[in-house]
């Protein structure tokens, strides 16, 4: 498919910020021509978490074959690309560097622009892959292992962070509780699975709402409440029902996320909520929001599960809109492990 007739914008997206080495070719923002994810999750399962040493070594082994495969499956060459988009933060520095250096070299050699994408923005743009009819303003609830944010988008590239976690991210709290319950990695899906056999009313865990009207989150105290329940039972020589604990904790986390999302919708008057990040795949969260938002005539949009976890397609999608805006990263682009989402 070299030498295409009509003018098309073809973006290669590359993501290496954490577990996954992923590359995707996206045409005109909607036509996903290839999407390769080389996951290290099997390796990590053995260790009960992301092991960065393995992460960066695996990325450097995988990046070339993953990019080559994505180009081959899309039936394009470097000369057909309009730009290369790459995650430059936040994430693990070693892992990010593999993607950034690779993308930089490829874009420079191909003589095309390099686009530096914020990983968090990428997660939100996963929604644009499958929904082209999204109208601004949009409210995004980004929930993952490292982040919990409420962000309002006035337009592409124009957003304001309304709230974020003051301590643990929602996914981190789920991960840590899963580990304390002996459920394994990744914690979120394990909690969800175990919770199916449990009673979500069995334990009354607190819901940290913070000051009235606040859109910030705090999951640390909720995590501690589960640990306290486990510890005190242990001291009394009792064992607690693990499915009940998982179900009650999952319910508490979902209640807080839903409450804050509804509050943000109410405060902003926005009529579309985008879910993003790994925890967006949580069924209870989706179903509860589905139910609550239908009552308020608010549209709920979320990505397919494959686009909820880290992936190159979402980076290509964000890259497409940056390309349209005329953005380009300098050749000095560096990995920024602590990159934030700043209101702009």
């Amino acid at each position, binding site marked *: 498919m070299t030498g295409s007739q009509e003018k098309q914008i073809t973006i290669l997206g590359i993501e290496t910020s954490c577990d996954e080495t992923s590359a995707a070719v996206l045409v005109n923002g909607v036509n996903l021509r290839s999407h390769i994810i080389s996951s290290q999750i099997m390796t990590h399962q053995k260790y009960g978490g992301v092991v960065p040493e393995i992460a960066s070594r695996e990325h450097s082994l995988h990046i070339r074959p993953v990019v080559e495969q994505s180009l081959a499956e899309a039936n394009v060459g470097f000369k057909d690309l309009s730009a290369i988009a790459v995650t430059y933060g936040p994430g*693990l520095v070693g892992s990010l560097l593999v993607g950034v250096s690779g993308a930089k070299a490829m874009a420079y050699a191909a003589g095309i622009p390099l686009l530096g994408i914020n990983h968090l923005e990428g997660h939100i743009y996963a929604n644009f892959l499958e929904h082209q009819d999204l109208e601004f303003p949009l409210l995004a609830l980004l929930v993952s292992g490292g982040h919990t944010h409420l962000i309002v988008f006035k337009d592409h590239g124009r957003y304001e962070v309304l709230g974020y976690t003051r*301590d643990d991210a929602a996914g981190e709290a789920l991960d840590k509780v899963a580990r304390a319950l002996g459920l394994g990695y990744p914690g979120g899906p394990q909690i969800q699975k175990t919770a199916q056999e449990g009673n979500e009313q069995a334990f009354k865990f607190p819901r940290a709402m913070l000051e009235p009207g606040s859109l910030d989150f705090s999951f640390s105290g909720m995590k501690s409440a589960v*640990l306290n329940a486990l510890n005190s039972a242990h001291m009394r020589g009792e064992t607690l029902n693990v499915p009940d604990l998982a179900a009650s904790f999952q319910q508490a986390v979902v209640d807080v996320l839903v409450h804050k999302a509804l509050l943000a919708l109410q405060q902003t008057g926005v009529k579309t909520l985008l879910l993003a990040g790994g925890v967006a795949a949580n069924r209870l969260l989706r179903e509860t929001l589905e139910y609550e938002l239908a009552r308020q005539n608010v549209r709920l949009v979320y990505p397919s599960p494959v686009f909820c976890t880290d992936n190159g397609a979402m980076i290509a999608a964000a890259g497409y809109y940056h390309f349209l805006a005329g953005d380009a990263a300098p050749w000095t682009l560096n990995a920024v492990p602590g990159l934030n989402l700043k209101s702009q």
Partner: protein
Amino acid sequence: MDYKVTSVTAEQTRNWGKYLAAYLLPGDVLALIGDLGAGKTAFAQGIGEGLGVTRPMASPTFTLIHEYEGQCQGTEIHLVHMDLYRLQHPHEVEVIGVEESFSGDSICLIEWPEIAEDYLPENRLDVEILGSGEQPREIVFHGNEGNWEQRITAMIHSKEEKLGGS
């Protein structure tokens, strides 16, 4: 010699971090030890507050290393907040760049430091938070080498004076 103080709320734990911040110097390395939910992140947030960090300090468990800009004894410093909870092998400590953070213009806070034992400088302050759940916490300061003993006693005395002596 160990110095102990007590804390009955997360807020008090945070405040002890804030008091300690006034006695820190550029280049300091602090190991924060304690179980899940003991209050390590709250203590670190207090240090950040004391060092004039304005950005929110969330838990670095997932992202491993967070860096902030702060002020210490009148100079600009980087406050590096690490969490090694998820590391499994000591050599991963090298790969994520823990040692690179030990520099004269940084103050380094390390949660779950046990795995990095071989890489930590001898001249450091260990802060161990004992107790969990609803129990009050005992915060134990243990200075290895350096002048930590003077600094910790000065902090505790100043705190006691503010409270009217005890």
